[in-house]
C-alpha cells in the first residue's frame, strides 16, 4: 500500500500553513497526525498533489481554560485529550471519546482537528462535540471564524471547512452539564468504530433535569444532536422511568445509517439503549 507521489511541505507556523493552502486547491491536503488521511492515501482513494504538514505545530497543541471555555489546539492528540485531567474534569465525554478511538498507537498520533476535518460518519468525536455544544475555530488567510457543531458537520465526510481553511481550535464551554457528561459506544467488532456512539451532558438541579444535550456518532450520515430525547427529559424529574421514556425517543425523525454491522432498526434500537445507559450513568 503505497500512496501516489506528492509534494510535501512542513509548515513552521499557523500563518505559513494558512498561506500554503490559501489558494484553496482541492489537490492540497492538510496533514496533522495522518490517521485519517494516510489510510485513504494508501488505498489511493485520495491522491493529493501536495500535502501540508501541520502536525508538529506546537502552537496548535494545547489544552487550556480560556474565556469560559476549554480551548483545545487542533493537533492535540487523542491520547493527550484522554489523559488530560482538565478535560476529564470539565468535559469527561470528550476525554472518554478520545480514549476509545482506535487503539493506543492510533491515539498517540491521531489528532482531534484531523479527525473532525475528515468527518467520518463513524468517528467518535462528533457526537461528543454536539453533546458538549462545542465549536470549531478555523483560520484562513482572511482570518478566523467560529463554527458551531451543527453548522460544521454537513454530511458523510463533508464539513463546512473550506479548502483554504485550517482547523485551529476546538472550544468546549465550561458549564455544569458538560462537567457531568459521558460518552458510551457500541463498537463494530472489526474496525471498532462506533456502530452507535452516544454522548450525553446532563445538568440536574434538585433531581430535575435543567439541561440535557445528547449527541450521536455513527448513527446518521453526520453526527447530530437528538432533540427528541432532550425535549422528553428537559424539566423532568430524572428517574429510571423518565430516562427510559426519553431514551425511547432516540433517533425519532432522523435518517439512520444501514450497513453490514447494523440494519436501520437495529441501529435505532442501539441508539435508544445507549441513550438510556448514558443517561442512567449520569443521573
Amino acid at each position, binding site marked *: *500500500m503505497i500512496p501516489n*507521489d506528492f509534494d510535501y511541505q512542513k509548515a513552521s507556523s499557523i500563518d505559513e500553513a494558512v498561506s500554503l493552502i490559501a489558494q484553496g486547491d482541492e489537490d492540497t491536503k492538510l496533514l496533522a497526525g495522518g490517521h485519517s488521511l494516510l489510510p485513504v492515501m494508501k*488505498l*489511493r482513494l485520495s491522491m493529493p498533489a501536495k500535502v501540508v504538514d501541520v502536525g508538529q505545530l506546537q502552537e496548535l497543541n494545547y489544552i487550556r481554560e480560556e474565556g469560559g471555555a476549554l480551548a483545545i489546539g487542533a493537533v492535540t492528540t487523542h491520547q493527550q485529550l484522554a489523559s488530560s485531567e482538565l478535560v476529564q474534569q470539565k468535559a469527561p465525554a470528550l476525554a472518554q471519546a478520545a480514549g476509545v478511538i482506535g487503539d493506543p498507537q492510533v491515539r498517540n498520533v491521531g489528532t482531534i482537528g484531523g479527525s473532525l476535518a475528515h468527518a467520518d460518519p463513524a468517528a467518535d468525536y462528533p457526537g461528543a462535540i454536539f453533546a458538549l455544544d462545542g465549536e470549531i475555530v478555523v483560520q484562513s488567510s482572511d482570518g478566523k471564524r467560529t463554527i458551531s457543531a451543527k453548522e460544521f458537520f454537513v454530511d458523510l465526510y463533508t464539513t463546512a471547512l473550506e479548502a483554504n481553511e485550517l482547523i485551529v481550535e476546538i472550544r468546549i464551554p465550561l458549564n455544569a452539564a458538560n462537567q457531568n457528561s459521558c460518552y458510551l459506544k457500541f463498537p463494530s*467488532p*472489526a*474496525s471498532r468504530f462506533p456502530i452507535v456512539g452516544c454522548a450525553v451532558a446532563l445538568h440536574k438541579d434538585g433531581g430535575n433535569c435543567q439541561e440535557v444535550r445528547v449527541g450521536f456518532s455513527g448513527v446518521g450520515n453526520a453526527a447530530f444532536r437528538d432533540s427528541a430525547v432532550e425535549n422528553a427529559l428537559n424539566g423532568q424529574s430524572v428517574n429510571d422511568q423518565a430516562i427510559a421514556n426519553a431514551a425511547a425517543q432516540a433517533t425519532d425523525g432522523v435518517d439512520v445509517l444501514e450497513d*453490514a454491522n447494523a440494519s436501520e432498526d*437495529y441501529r435505532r434500537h442501539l441508539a435508544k*439503549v445507549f441513550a438510556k445507559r448514558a443517561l442512567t450513568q449520569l443521573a
Partner: protein
Amino acid sequence: MGNLIGKSVKRVEDKKFITGNGEYTDDIKLSRMTYASIIRSPHAHAKIRSVDVSKAKDAPGVVGAFVGKDLADQGIVGVPTGWQVNFKNGDQMKEPPHPILATDKARHVGDAVAVVIAETAAQAKDAAELVEVDYEVLDAVVTASKAMEAGAPQLFEDVPNNVIFDWELGDKDSTDQALANAAHVTKLNIVNQRLIPNAIEPRSAIGDYDPSRDQYTLYSSTQNPHLIRLLMCAFVLGLPEHKVRVVARDVGGGFGSKIFHYIEETLVTWCSKQLCRPVKWTAERSESFISDAHGRDHETVAEMGFDSNQNIVGLRVKTIANLGAYLSTFAPAVPTYLYGTLLQGLYTTPAVHVDVTAVATNTVPVDAYRGAGRPEATYLLERLLDTAATELGTDPAELRLKNFIPPFDGVDQPGYQTQVALQYDSGNYEAVLKKALEISNYEQLRKEQEEARKEGRYLGIGFSTYIEACGIAPSAVVGALGARAGLYESAAVRVQPTGKVSVYVGSHSHGQGHDTTFAQLVADYFGIAMDDVEINHGDTESVAFGMGTYGSRSLAVGGSAIVKSMEKIKEKGAKIAAHLLEASENDLEFAEGKWTVKGTDKSVGFGDVSLTAYVPHNYPENLEPGLDFTSFYDPANFTFPFGAHIAVVEVDAETGKVEVKKYFGCDDVGNVINPMIVEGQLHGGIVQGIGQAILEGAAYDAEGQLDNPSYMDYAMPRADDVPDFELERTVTPCPHNPMGAKGAGEAGTIGAAPAIVNAVVDALQPFGVKDLDMPLSPQKVWRAIQQSS
C-alpha cells in the same frame, strides 16, 4: 532416556524473534532485486477481452510486464491440485485449469490477470495502475447451492452445473432405515461459514534465477518447501527438480493457508528467468483477502436419530461444499476425506452416511484452514448433540456420556472401527469430559446460570467433545483415497565428529516450536545437551525431502522420522562403542550419553564414538565411517487426538453482544514432549475457533464482491475479545508411533466453535432460540431474540 521429554523447556527459537532478527521472506533483500505488482480482477466473473501493459512498460523504473498469454505461449497451463476425488459413478472429478495469470476469463475478485515488475515497489505499484484490462462483466454466482441450480452462471465450459464431484461415504440404506425407525430425530440446517485464514505475515515470494548455473531459487512463505518444488517443477513449469531450490525461512503463521502452491510462486520464478533478475512479490493485506485460499464454506443438512433410551441410532449428513473458482492443492480432500470420515465423532452411532457435492463458484478458492474438514464435522455433530439434549430434556453432558465409545488403548483392546472408514487408534472419551466437568465446576455453573437468569442476565454453557484425525497420513491409505503424493516425512540426523548433532527435517516450523521440541527429542534420546542439537528445516538444498507441516503431523510423523534415524545412529554407534570397549554389542547399554558394558564401569561417550566414526583409525571391520542417517517415516495410521471443551458466555440481550466469560478444556493429544508448547497451540487454536463462532466470516455479495476485504470490516479476535483459558490434559498414548504422540495443532480450533455456539444457544433458551449460524454477531443475536420473543 534423558530427562527432557515432558518438560516445558523455553523455546530456543525465541531469541531471534524477540530481538527482531527473524528472517521472513519479505525481509530478504537480494542484489539487483526487482518488485512485482499483480493486477487482479475487480470483477467476480468477466470475460477478458484484452490486457494492455504497454503504458505500464513505459513507466519509470519498469523492467517487465507480463500477461497470461506470455505464460500460455510457453505451454504453462497452471497450478494443479494434489488430490483426486471421483464422482459417485466412478467418473474422474472435474479439474479445470487454474492459470497463473487468467487469459480467457477472470473467475473471482482477485484473480491475477497481469504482473508489472519494476526497480522499486512504489514504481511497480504506480505502473500497475497503467495496465488496461477490457472486461466484459458476466453474472456471478457465489453460493454453492445456487451454483448447482439450473441456469446458474457457468464458470467453466466443461463443468456442468459447476459440480466438481459428488461423493458419499457410509451405508445409506442402513442409515435411512435407522432414522426412519428412530424415536426422535434432531435435524439442523447448518452453514459453516467461509473464513479467511489471516496469518499475520502476508504471503511473500522471491524468484531468483541464476543464469551462470542455470538454477532457480524460490524463497517463499510456505509451510512445505519440498511440495512446492515438486508441484512447480513437475506439474507447472516443467523444470528439472535438481535445478530448483525452494527456501522457506521464518514464516509468520500459516494455519493451512501457506500449504498450497500458489500462482505467485510460479509467477516470480518464471519472471526471474525472463528478466534474469530476482523478482519479489509480497502481498498487501488487501491482496491476501482475495488471494489467500479461504477455509470452510459448507451448507449442510444434518439429522441425528435417537432411540427411546437416547442412544444415537443414525446420522445422515448432506453437504454442499464451496470450492471457489479453482481447485487449490488440498481442496478436494477437505470436504471429503478430512470431513466425512470424522462423522462418527466420539459416538457409537451404528449407521452413518454422508453425501457431499463439491461446487465451483466465483469466489476465492477454498482449501484447508486450521482443522480442515474436521472442524466442520465436529461442529455439526456437537450442535446436533446439544440441540438433541434440549429437545430430549436431558443434560448435554449426560447425553454424550451415554453415547461415547468405551475406552480402548489400541494395544490390549483393538482400535475402534468406525462406520466411515477410519480405525481410531486409542481413546478414553469419558475421561476428558469428566475432567472438563470437574475443572469447570459444572454443577456450580448451572446454579450461577439459574441465579443470573433471575436477574435478567443470560449466561450460557456450551459443550463440545471432539475427535480429529491427525498425523496425516499413511501413504497407502491416502493414495487409495486420491492423494497424488505420499504423506510420509523424512529426517536426517547427522552426528558431527565432535558429537554435535545436526538434524534436517522435512517438517516446517512457522510458530510450532520445532527447533525446541525436536531438539528436546534428540537431546533426550542421545543424552546430550540441547545446545548441542541444531534443527534445520525449510530449505530443499539441505533437507533430503519433506511433505511439510499441516494436519497436526510434525511431531507424530516428522518426529517419528527423527526417531527412526536416531535408532540407526544408536545401532551403529553401539558397533563402534563395542569395538572401542572390546565388548560384545549385546553386552552394552546406552544411557546418559554413553555406552556402558553392563555391570561394569567401562564406558565410552557419545562424543568419542562420534569422533571415532569420522576418524576411523581404530574401527570395526566392514563398517562404513560416518554417523549420519536419513529416514523416511510413513505412519501406520492416522492419530486421533480428542478432547472436551466447555464454554461459558454471557449475552447482553439488549445489544446481542456475546462475551466469552470462561473457557475450560481437557484435551488428550497423547504423549507430550513440551507441555508449554502444546498449551500454546491449544490457546491459539481456541481463539481461532472463538473467532469463527462470534467474529469472522467472509461476506460475498451477489455480484461476488467481498464485502469485508480488510481488517476494517473482517473482525479478527483481539486480546480483549477472549478470556484466559483453563486447560487440563489426559494422556492416552498413540499406540503406533514411537513417541505415542498424537498432535495438537488443530485441536483448539476444532473444539472451540461448537462449544461457543452451543453456549450462546443455551444462554438464549429463555427466548426460545434454538439455532443460530456463525458468526454470532451482535446484530444476529439481537434479531434472533426479537424474532423468538
